[in-house]
């Protein structure tokens, strides 16, 4: 009886993974929630300045990006369904579409940020301090922080999707074990819904 038990039990509990993901999403919501609180406080204190500053942003680009993210949320949801139906190729294509849409969103964002930088509107710029009121500086500070943090989450989401696609391709994620795809989908929806709040706060409310 010298046989020492060395194999650690394989433990697979999709329910646990889902609870874990939802809890993680709570923490993400709080992370952004605090930024929304700061936004509300400063909007209340600098109402007119926020109104002025918001007119500098291009509603058209913002709206296009909103549509892009909404469609990408749809495609990732569809990929989950096609995985359940055991259509691996379709799953990969839908994930790929999501990936492309996410990249297009980032490109748009890059062009938009770049335009602001060209006009001297970026944190710490002398032009900003010289030509804008304190409220407007706060608005742009929050704009760059919140959309920047959101863009970072998009990038993390894209990395997740690439990982999932690889695992689907390798057969590690399949109809019997869909949790990784489902959780990545949840994360992508979270990123999407945060944008749904960011868009009106910065572009629409004036």
């Amino acid at each position, binding site marked *: 009886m010298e046989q*020492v038990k060395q194999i*650690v039990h394989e*433990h697979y509990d999709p329910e646990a993974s889902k609870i874990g993901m939802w809890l*993680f999403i709570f923490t993400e919501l709080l*992370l952004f929630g605090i930024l929304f609180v700061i936004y509300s406080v400063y909007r209340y204190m600098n109402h007119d300045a926020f109104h002025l500053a918001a007119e500098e942003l291009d509603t058209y680009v913002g709206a296009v990006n909103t549509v892009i993210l909404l469609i990408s949320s749809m495609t990732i949801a569809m990929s989950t369904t096609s995985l359940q139906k055991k259509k691996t190729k379709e799953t990969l294509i839908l994930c790929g579409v999501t990936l492309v849409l996410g990249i297009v969103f980032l490109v748009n964002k890059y062009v938009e940020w770049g335009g602001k930088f060209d006009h001297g509107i970026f*944190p710490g710029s002398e032009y900003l301090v010289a030509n804008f009121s304190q409220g407007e500086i*706060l608005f742009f500070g929050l704009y760059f922080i919140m959309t920047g943090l959101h863009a970072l989450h998009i990038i993390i989401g894209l990395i997740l999707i690439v990982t999932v696609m690889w695992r689907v391709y390798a057969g590690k994620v399949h109809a019997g074990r869909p949790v990784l795809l489902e959780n990545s989908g949840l994360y992508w929806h979270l990123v999407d819904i945060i944008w749904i709040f960011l868009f009106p706060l910065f572009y629409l409310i004036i």
Partner: protein
Amino acid sequence: MSSSGIQHEASYLEYKGKYTGLLGWIFSTDHKRIGLLYLYSMTVMFLVGVVLGLMMRFELLAPGKTVMDAQAYNATFTVHGVIMIFMVVIPGLPAVFGNFFLPLMIGARDVAFPRLNLLSWWFYVAGVMLVLSALLFGPGTPDTGWTFYAPYSFRTGTNLLPAIFGAFVLGFSSILTGLNFLVTIHRLRCPGMKWTKLPLFVWTLYGTAWIQLLATPVVGITLVLIALERLFAVGIFDPALGGDPILYQHLFWIYSHPAVYVMILPALGVISEIIPTFSQKHIFGYKAIIASTMAIAFVGYLVWGHHMFTAGMSGTAQYYFSLLTFLVAVPSAIKVFNWISTMYKGSINVQTPFLWAVSFIFVFMIGGLSGLVLGALAANIYVHDTAFVVAHFHYIVFGGTGFAFFGAIHYWYPKIFGRMYDKSWANIGWVVFFIGFLTLYTPMFYLGLMGMPRRYYDYLSEFHGGNILATVGSWLLATGLIIIIANLIRSARKGEIVERNPWNSKTLEWVVPSPPPVENFDEIPVLGEQDGPYNY
């Protein structure tokens, strides 16, 4: 309760997996090994913090400059605070004893996400390294205090960025641990382990995990904002650009007050385990203790404003925060009543863990009652930012969490290492430590009431007597600490080998052999109707 402890299975200490030696530890996903990894890394950081504390006390031995100037003193209390808060007491009990005993106590083989668990330890180490790099490299040791208050935190020329980033990473580690525990408690309780049969330590870990999860992101993003302020001057907390430094204080304390409950709740849980075991009696008011645990976790989330009574806040807000602060005292008092009632007519066995538990109740009560002095608006204005606050805080966090930590290590030591420490040396260590603790912190109450401010390297000659006493106390405390730690280290190899249940406790971790086998339970235990964690 069924369990078949088969002796031939390797214990977690001897187990040889894919890696051996040190790698077998730092790449192990076994919750018991991770618990010990935390224990060792945390002990090292704790000792660093203690040395810094001793240096501060030595500086305060006499008025004027004794060994360090103002800048060095500022850096010392900052680093002491950052290390002790973020690396020792916040992760402390959950990361060490939670990791080790949570799965054992609920009859599981491991936590829900073992690899995530190892990842959180790695995050912990990374955070520690980052903070230490702020001390060793760059233009100077951070001098803002552990609170990183704006606007000084982005005006100071010292090397603050790595420290802030380190605190952020440590927060991430804390979130992952909390998340892991929540899922574990929800999914991995053994059959028959109803919520009303959970050991109280597990209940407090549950409450703590929720706070870790819901409060830590707040400080995470706030620290990121401070870093962005330093790097890019975004203006969020900079009054020169329209930002509001008071808002920083709010956001910081929205996390950092609940963090105090992250520190103290598991400590209350440990005491709730020790007292019934050494009284050999069912815990008094099991459900009341659970309710008070959850009440503390909930109300503790809403009292942050009492750190800012002098910072500029509306009168209405002050009333609410003061009232809520008083409310938190109620569930804490309920627990004390329950512990005392548990002892009443019990068969008390005075062992080292019990001594720690009883002295915990003593210092926790003094700490808690002095907290009411600080929670009362009028009294707070008088003692705000004095040595009184330092005394109160250390009575709660060192006297509370620290004593519970020592109680826990003496209580679970035979389970962790399968050996018993030298009991008489352990008791001597406790006596010296306890006397040292009282001598160190009690004079600070009086000094604070006399008006001695905190965070100064110098003081008026009126305060000399009290400061001498406190410094002598710090030497006593250090002596006690050396005795305790030396005894524990020695006994891990040379201590007497013990049975699986030396204290005759009823919780599940005592059912398995000491030290526990790799997989904890050969067969997952099943609790019957009569079984329970405190059914003596």
